């Protein structure tokens, strides 16, 4: 037994309102740079829908993840080592930018600086790739809220794999939102695909990262990842991916997407697992068994045997404690309400989802029946084949039973808590019918519905004292090649050693304060004006008297 700790996430899909706050804050934090304009480390998809990049779940097309050979071993679906290197000059399965979407901006300048004319000026969309005018025809969430789905949803790989009746019954629409980040898999196929060995899984917390100094831009990881969550920065020529906000996680803070989630639907915590059993668990023959085999890899943090083995591996005491308090362990293993996304890719993903009960509740409530009555809900879960089959296509490789079991528990909780909230006697039979006790149901309710901050995020801090790295915060101006340098390295803007953030900020500030033109056309920078002396140029339009007689301006009081 080799105990390892994995920082993992669970998302409660019933609470997702599809507001994209996680996507936007993530983008602001990580990918608002040239070269990654089209990249969303976190994106929110409306399902059914074709996702981002388009149809990424169709592995017959994209060849991501692992597949099981007839001899029971795992091999990369896109081909092993020889096959990879034979395709290195041109990767046949690399998505082009158009498979994501062509990023654009608007010609905002035109709104303010257009010459006087008969027509209102218009901010035209401009491609961020070519700089030309463009017609916007797709984006990272083009089919948001099923917009245009009548035309595009037929291409949803999950729908295509469901039995034929679905297309016809599609009028009985249902939808839910699926926020996605990197899965930080236990058996990451992107890492296995990297020819340079630049991608790695961190021993301490299992976060999968790209070493930017070692990446040589062979692009095999993009193909290898079945979730298409490794992206190619077309400016620097290197791979980039979700980092699980490791600088925040290391100091005990939740990721940006979790912290800013308005629905409070994300949970972060540790899972202990047996690294020796991962490969065997990922290569079980029946795809439907992958869920159970992945669960069997996780180790009970309360088991004294496991705790001893964890200590022997050098896992610190507070990490073991955090693993015991982990909401992830509870949701996956104790309440068994969380399911992995696409276990059939055999990468052992570590971002799990609590499937949404809302499509079921909606149907029951719409039919006029009581949408909080356990029996109505149970019957609907058994009868409503389309949403349940769809969820099974996402979370259990098509096996309906675990999805139904999970939904029943959620329905039971809903029903049980309704009695409590109305001041009635709680009905233990409801809890028993899903194999739980009333206390367990209430605990689960507190974790899922009340969802206190400190219960959602149980993040132990990193265990190497990093005082020397914090020196950067002091903004030392004598940094080697520091503030005197600025600008680009000798081989374009992406070259040269990494510039400390403090130095970068210093330059940005200096540039903004000394620039001839305001950085945003039409805006005036008031940051460097203390209210005394001449106001910044452009704050007020020139006086007509100034234009005629510049000398007179001195005698008049200034605002």
């Amino acid at each position: 037994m080799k105990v390892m700790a994995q920082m993992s996430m669970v998302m409660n899909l019933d609470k997702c309102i599809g507001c994209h706050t996680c996507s936007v804050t993530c983008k602001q934090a990580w990918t608002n740079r040239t070269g990654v304009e089209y990249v969303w480390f976190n994106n929110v998809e409306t399902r059914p829908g074709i996702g981002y990049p388009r149809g990424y779940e169709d592995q017959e097309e994209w060849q991501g993840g692992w597949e099981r050979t007839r001899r029971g071993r795992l091999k990369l679906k896109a081909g092993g080592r020889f096959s990879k290197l034979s395709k290195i000059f041109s990767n046949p399965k690399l998505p082009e930018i158009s498979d994501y979407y062509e990023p654009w901006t608007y010609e905002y300048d035109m709104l303010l600086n257009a010459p006087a004319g008969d027509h209102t000026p218009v901010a035209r969309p401009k491609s961020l790739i070519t700089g030309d005018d463009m017609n916007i025809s797709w984006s990272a969430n083009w089919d948001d809220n099923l917009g245009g789905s009548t035309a595009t949803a037929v291409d949803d790989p999950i729908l295509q794999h469901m039995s034929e009746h679905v297309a016809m019954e599609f009028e009985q629409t249902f939808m839910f939102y699926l926020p996605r980040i990197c899965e930080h898999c236990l058996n990451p196929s992107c890492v296995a695909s990297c020819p340079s060995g630049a991608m790695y899984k961190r021993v301490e917390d299992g976060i999968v990262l790209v070493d930017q100094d070692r990446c040589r831009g062979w692009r095999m990881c993009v193909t290898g990842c079945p979730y298409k969550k490794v992206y190619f920065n077309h400016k620097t020529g290197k791979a980039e991916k979700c980092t699980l906000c490791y600088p925040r996680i290391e100091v005990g803070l939740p990721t940006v997407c979790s912290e800013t989630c308005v629905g409070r639907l994300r949970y972060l915590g540790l899972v202990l697992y047996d690294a020796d059993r991962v490969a065997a668990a990922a290569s079980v023959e029946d795809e439907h068994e992958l869920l159970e085999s992945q669960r069997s890899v996780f180790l009970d943090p309360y088991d004294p045997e496991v705790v001893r083995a964890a200590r022997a591996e050098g896992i610190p005491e507070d990490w073991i404690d955090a693993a015991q308090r982990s909401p992830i362990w509870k949701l996956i293993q104790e309440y068994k309400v969380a399911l992995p996304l696409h276990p059939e890719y055999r990468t052992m993903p570590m971002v799990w989802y609590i499937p949404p009960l809302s499509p079921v509740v909606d149907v029951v409530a719409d039919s006029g029946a009581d949408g909080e009555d356990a029996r109505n809900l149970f019957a609907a879960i058994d009868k409503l084949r389309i949403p349940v089959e769809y969820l099974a296509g996402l979370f259990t490789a098509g096996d309906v039973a675990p999805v139904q079991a999970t939904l029943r528990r959620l329905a039971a909780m809903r029903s049980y808590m309704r009695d409590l909230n109305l001041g009635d006697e709680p009905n233990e039979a409801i809890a028993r019918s899903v194999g739980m006790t009333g206390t367990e149901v209430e605990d689960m309710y507190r974790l899922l519905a009340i969802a206190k901050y400190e219960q959602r995020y149980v993040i132990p801090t990193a265990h190497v004292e990093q005082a020397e790295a914090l020196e950067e915060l002091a903004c030392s101006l004598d940094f080697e090649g520091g503030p005197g340098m600025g600008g680009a390295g000798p081989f374009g803007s992406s070259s040269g050693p990494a510039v400390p953030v403090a130095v970068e900020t210093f330059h940005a500030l200096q540039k903004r304060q000394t620039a001839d033109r305001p950085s945003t056309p039409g805006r005036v920078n008031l940051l460097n004006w203390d209210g005394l002396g001449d106001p910044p140029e452009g704050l007020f339009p020139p006086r007509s008297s100034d234009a005629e007689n510049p000398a007179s301006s001195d005698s008049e009081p200034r605002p």
Partner: protein
Amino acid sequence: MTPLDVLLWVAFPYAAAAVFIVGHVWRYRYDKFGWTTRSSQVYENRLLRIGSPAFHLGILFVLVGHLVGLLVPAEWLEAIGISHEMYHIGATVLGTAAAVLTIVGLTILIYRRRMTGPVFLATTRMDKTMYVFLGATIAFGTAATVLYQVFGAGYEYRGTVGPWTRSLIVFQPQPELMTTVPLAFQLHVITATALFALWPFTRLVHVFSAPVGYFFRPYIVYRSRDEGRASQPARRGWEPMAPPEHRQRSRARR
């Protein structure tokens, strides 16, 4: 032998070799982040799918041909039964085939680079300079082969250019060997030498990143966070610190 000959056939090659070696070391130390293939496949795939493999495979054949032709003395080949005629025919046929593959590939790639908007926008000045020297080297080399080997009587470079190359490698330069070489070959050598001097400052550095290690490592790479930090330069005045139990562990590991 004129001073120009010494300049061209002794000083220039050695200077280029020095720049080549020192430049790579410097670039690797200074600019690991810029060390990449700078692939433009995400912009355009249709032309690249044909052009890139054609060019790369072609140039690899060309490389092998040059290694054999320049570094292996003719007597050695004769000793293992490859006569002068056999070598000549083999080198000309295979060399011409490789040249065609390379030129077709390079033409497609250059056309793509110029005509595909995003790819052209992503082209740096260094790229353009590199293309000039790479294109010139390949053009002169092909011209020399076609003029002298295919249509001419055949020029025995293994008596001049080959020994001259080896004389440079063993630091016993014999520039006089190069004075009688036909102009097309001379130009090919000069542009190639210049290309080597440019090499470390262009995207060509990716040649030295050929991922051979991929065959020998396990699929899943694990790395400790400490390793990542070890690669950062140590800052003045700070001793790396570790909690007591960690120190014990790392000592036990040693």
